[in-house]
């Protein structure tokens, strides 16, 4: 019997975890990525705000398990009706099952003035070079106003935005610039942290550290000459150093039929089984889909695990679990934990959680291969959101 072909587009967290959990005795598995390297994106923060020199990439070819093929190619078109996928060199791939896991695409050109700011100052969300560029700008900074935030609501990893402001404040204090600097954190959400229960936990820290918050601030345009950022809601902020995370869009790949993508090119998939709308043999996992959950590595991971079960003929579903580590600086961290049925728990920051976040950076490569699965299963069991809510939400 011929083996069923599984084609995975994208060798990021979602794509690799899926590929590495499929039985290669039963499935012919190929991962295609336009890059050779896979990056540990959460570390962009420590490059941008602490000047970390840690190497955060590994070749995708070394991250797939034996039996899984890796091809470097940029996919341009996917035809879901004909089950055909087109690469850059006229290569055509066929499949029995398709998983798209192409992450997000930064779009600094969709906001007037943002491209100039992005090219000059870098950011802490898109790639290593931009994070290094931001660090060099922060290192040269001598005082004034720093405006920091996300330019539009769709962004990876919701805590990372405020983490940036916290780490920045810690750095400025360390180098003695705190008194000469005003940190303005702008956000399209109603408060510093979008989910209210977690906001209650972090807001006192925001206040205590003198970080000014401008809520409901969706960037409409930037005037680099007058160093001013304007919001859709009618506010503006003048800066000396701008740190603006560009909007995240979906994949650039042309997908037939185009009705499976929303106006920002995210792929419409159902929230439990990640099946692309109208198809049983095609899935969209991780940041590239429209699931009503955060765009994080953990969700990509859990979605990929469920899809690997589904492809292998077993029942599984994704329950919307999120689990974002949240570095509150000065050696402490917390986690933002929720799922489709349970709101975010007000989980307090501690030193232990910070150690866990740092450990995660080391065992990350194991999680891609699946060798850390038992640790995760235990962790997820002990930190179920309903449990945390019972423990911490009731004390309010």
């Amino acid at each position, binding site marked *: 019997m011929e083996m069923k072909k599984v084609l995975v587009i994208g060798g990021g967290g979602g794509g690799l975890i899926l590929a590495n959990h499929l039985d290669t005795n039963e499935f012919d598995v190929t991962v295609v990525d336009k890059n050779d390297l896979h990056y540990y994106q959460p570390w962009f923060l420590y490059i941008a705000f602490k000047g970390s020199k840690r190497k955060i990439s590994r070749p995708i070819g070394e991250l797939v398990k034996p039996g899984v093929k890796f091809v470097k190619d940029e996919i341009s078109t996917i035809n879901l009706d004909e089950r055909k996928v087109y690469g850059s060199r006229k290569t055509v791939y066929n499949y029995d099952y398709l998983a798209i896991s192409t992450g997000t695409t930064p779009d600094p050109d969709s906001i007037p003035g943002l491209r100039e700011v992005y090219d000059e100052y870098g950011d802490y969300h898109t790639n290593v070079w931009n994070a290094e560029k931001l660090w060099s700008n922060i290192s040269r900074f001598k005082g004034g106003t720093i405006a920091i935030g996300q330019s*539009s*609501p*769709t962004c990876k990893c919701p805590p990372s935005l405020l983490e940036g402001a916290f780490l920045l404040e810690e750095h400025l204090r360390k180098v003695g610039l705190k008194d000469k600097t005003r940190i303005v954190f702008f956000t399209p*959400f109603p408060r510093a942290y*979008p989910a*209210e229960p977690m906001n209650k936990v972090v807001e006192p820290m925001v206040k205590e550290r003198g970080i000014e918050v401008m809520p409901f601030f969706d960037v409409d345009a930037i005037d680099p000459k007058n160093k001013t950022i304007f919001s859709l809601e009618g506010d503006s902020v003048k800066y000396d150093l701008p740190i603006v995370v560009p909007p995240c869009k979906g994949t650039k790949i042309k997908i037939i039929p185009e009705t499976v993508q929303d*106006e920002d090119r995210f792929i419409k998939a159902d929230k439990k089984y990640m099946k692309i709308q109208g198809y049983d043999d095609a899935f969209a996992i991780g940041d590239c889909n429209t699931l*009503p959950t*955060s765009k994080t590595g953990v969700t990509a991971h859990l979605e990929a695990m469920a899809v690997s079960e589904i492809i292998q003929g077993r029942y599984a579903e994704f329950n919307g679990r999120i689990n974002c580590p949240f570095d509150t600086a000065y050696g402490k961290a917390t986690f933002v934990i929720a799922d489709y049925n*349970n709101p975010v728990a007000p989980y307090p920051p501690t030193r232990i959680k910070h150690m866990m976040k740092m450990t995660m950076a080391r065992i990350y490569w194991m999680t891609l291969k699946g060798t850390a699965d038992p640790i995760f299963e235990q962790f997820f069991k002990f930190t179920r959101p309903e449990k945390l809510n019972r423990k911490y939400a009731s004390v309010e």
Partner: protein
Amino acid sequence: MEATKIIDSRGAACPGPITDLAKAYRNSKVGDVLELWATDKGVKADTQAWATKTGNEILEVKEDPDKIVVRIKINKR
């Protein structure tokens, strides 16, 4: 008034329904009616604060068994 656009944010807890509302606002025009569906309880207070801030109008907040429906008229864009 017929909704110009239905925004289905059911299940979203973090970052939550405001993400989808703000996204739809960017692409809206004066006179549009946005209908936001959510399960997150915070949606009522948040959309109210959002409407006050942006100068738009909440037409109705309705609790169905499976969702909270907020209808918003865009007066300012």
